[in-house]
């Protein structure tokens, strides 16, 4: 009998097929639609349209504002939590971490439905504060994604670094500013990446809290709903490029510098 030889590389085959069918192919389709017009001719009109149309640019700015505010609040809330969890002397810090990450197990629309009830009790009519409610719901939704990478980065931070800071005469705020923060930059970056871009496109949250202003996600959705594949695709493609730039930038410029030092 012929022995069937098994190569470890073959383990990657199922995912590779999945990747080609559901990631690479759709991306190519998006690029195709993005750079063709309704008749199927190659065209850059959609691309130019995005940057000249006041409505799309306004949406981009609004999305950026939401994303910046949500990311900043997430960072401010998550950092102390992650620090206490990572550096505190609790016997079951991973169990505590679970408490913060646990909400991720429940679908986010369900969670936001629940949160809406609380906000209604507090505010009365949700429609009066669309921006604030959007931010509150998104922060609630994305917080675990910020805590996790920060927790990992701060756990790796050698305790003797903090002690060395104190030893050299620094108070806790000084150690935080001059030692802990700079050394947790990789964690901050991955946390920001995990929150910032999803916050730009998560239009379901806006719909749920009756925020009728468009963000990038709703814009794409509205084009697709009216069967305008070309304009919808070019916006998706542009967002994709933004993600690409952001990733390359953080990898090369900020993390690259870190690696050089470590």
């Amino acid at each position: 009998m012929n022995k069937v030889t098994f190569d470890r590389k073959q383990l990657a085959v199922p995912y590779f097929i999945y990747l080609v069918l559901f990631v690479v192919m759709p991306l190519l389709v998006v690029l195709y639609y993005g750079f063709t017009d309704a008749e199927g001719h190659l065209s850059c009109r959609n691309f130019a349209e995005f940057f000249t149309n006041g409505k799309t640019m306004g949406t981009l700015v609004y999305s950026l504002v939401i994303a910046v505010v949500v990311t900043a609040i997430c960072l401010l809330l998550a950092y102390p939590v992650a620090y206490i969890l990572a550096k505190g002397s609790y016997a079951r810090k991973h169990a505590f971490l679970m408490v913060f990450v646990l909400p991720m197990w429940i679908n986010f629309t369900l969670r936001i439905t629940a949160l809406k009830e609380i906000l209604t009790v507090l505010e009365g009519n949700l429609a009066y504060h669309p921006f604030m409610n959007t931010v509150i719901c998104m922060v609630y939704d994305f917080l675990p994604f910020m805590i996790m990478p920060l927790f990992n980065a701060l756990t790796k931070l050698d305790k003797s670094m903090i002690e060395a800071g104190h030893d050299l005469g620094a108070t806790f705020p000084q150690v935080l500013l001059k030692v802990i923060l700079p050394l947790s930059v990789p964690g901050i970056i991955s946390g920001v990446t995990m929150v910032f871009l999803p916050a730009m496109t998560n239009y379901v949250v806006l719909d749920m809290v009756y925020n009728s202003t468009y963000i990038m996600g709703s814009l794409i959705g509205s084009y697709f709903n009216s069967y305008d594949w070309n304009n919808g695709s070019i916006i998706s493609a542009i967002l994709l490029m933004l993600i690409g730039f952001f990733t390359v930038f953080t990898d090369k410029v900020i993390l690259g510098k870190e690696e050089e030092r470590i």
Partner: protein
Amino acid sequence: MSETKTIIRLDGVRKSYDGKVNVIEELSLDINEGEFVTLLGPSGCGKTTILRMIGGFDRPTDGKILLDDNDISLLPPNERPVNTVFQKYALFPHLNVYDNIAFGLKLKKLEKDEIDRKVKEVLELVDLEGFEKRSVSTLSGGQQQRIAIARAVVNEPRVLLLDEPLSALDYKMRKEMQLELKNMHKRLGITFIFVTHDQEEALTMSDKIVVMADGKIQQVGTPEEIYNEPANVFVADFIGESNIFNGVMSGRRKASFAGAEFECVDDYEPGKKIEAVIRPEDVSVVGEKDGILTGEVTSADFKGTFYVTFVQCGQYEMEVHCLEHYRPGAVVGLTVLPDNIHIIPYDMTINNFLGFIDGFVDGKGLYLVFKDFAMFVDQHRIYPDSRVSKGRLLDENGEFIDYQGKEVIAFYQPEDGDMSDDAKEGDVVGRIVSFYYIGDHYSYTIRTDNEIDYVVDDEDLWNQDDKVSVILPKKKMKFRLKQEDMH
């Protein structure tokens, strides 16, 4: 000797984590200004904890730490005139060499010119001129070590703490750094407190060595004192090589051990149990007929400047460092000068266990309860003249004996105890916390969860931390009522 001033004083310091077992037990120590003091001991002996308490990273559970007679026990590290060189250097990877060294100076808000000058000076001190702009990750282990020292001394601390700073370096580098640290100490004139588990390093560098084990100070002294006059068997065994034998004083300045009688200079009353320590380099090999001991060479290994020779004298083994090579199988005589035999009185406090009497059953005896075990013991072993009448215990005058709750001390000889790796076989279970070789057997100290030590002699080699059970020699155990209850 010139007038010395105490700079650091530990006064009855005790440390326990979460209210559990004491890491440091009631420890007092004076450190003089300008001294190079080494805390030496095996891992887990509490030496690093002491350093961390002086540095301010840990607080003593009890007791005080004084600097210049001021209590600093509760002062945070950033308010102490003390700097630390950490074991793994703890250099900041996000800062270059200059910024690492200037870290403390910038916090003190010094002028830029002054910082520049001080950084330059200290880089010269550690022989790394011109390294200001280098990233710390590009430095070798030895260079990082120097930067870590520079970063600490640039703040001109009163006391410099060094936590096993050389342990990560290779042998040659370590030797070099030992000398450099010693020179640096001379030039700077500040007090160094150095922690290490390497006895050779401690002997080379220190003005004063503090030998520690089990959270307790075993001995404080100059390197010569520690080496030549170890205070106990632990120190003798830990510092350098030594031959240790159990014996008794057989006369005035005469000790009998290893199957022979030796002249010695320590004077204890005849009959006293002792332990004799002989350094391998102090044993002379002579002709077969001329030695106090005669034995057969079992092995001889060349160590560069001498041969490590083992001589079997009857059941006792003696390690000898000699310049000549004796072939295994050769029969030789061994002598030791009286001056080179160090006599340590036998520690009579070991294997004494405090318990109490909790009842009497006719036919079985008195029921004794100790912290780790309980047992029935024939009443005559505690009350020799007692008799039993109608199930009750009477003394020689026919009075009832009030035995209930009386405190009893049990004792056994280490050589009568036994060990087993089967937990069920013995009476108490614990871990081996220390052991050393005594001529023809090993002496093991086994510690139970109740922090009680059992000393047992055994011929086989077991390992530190082995979980073993101790088989108590119930027939040979001795019992006595605690003194104060006798009256």
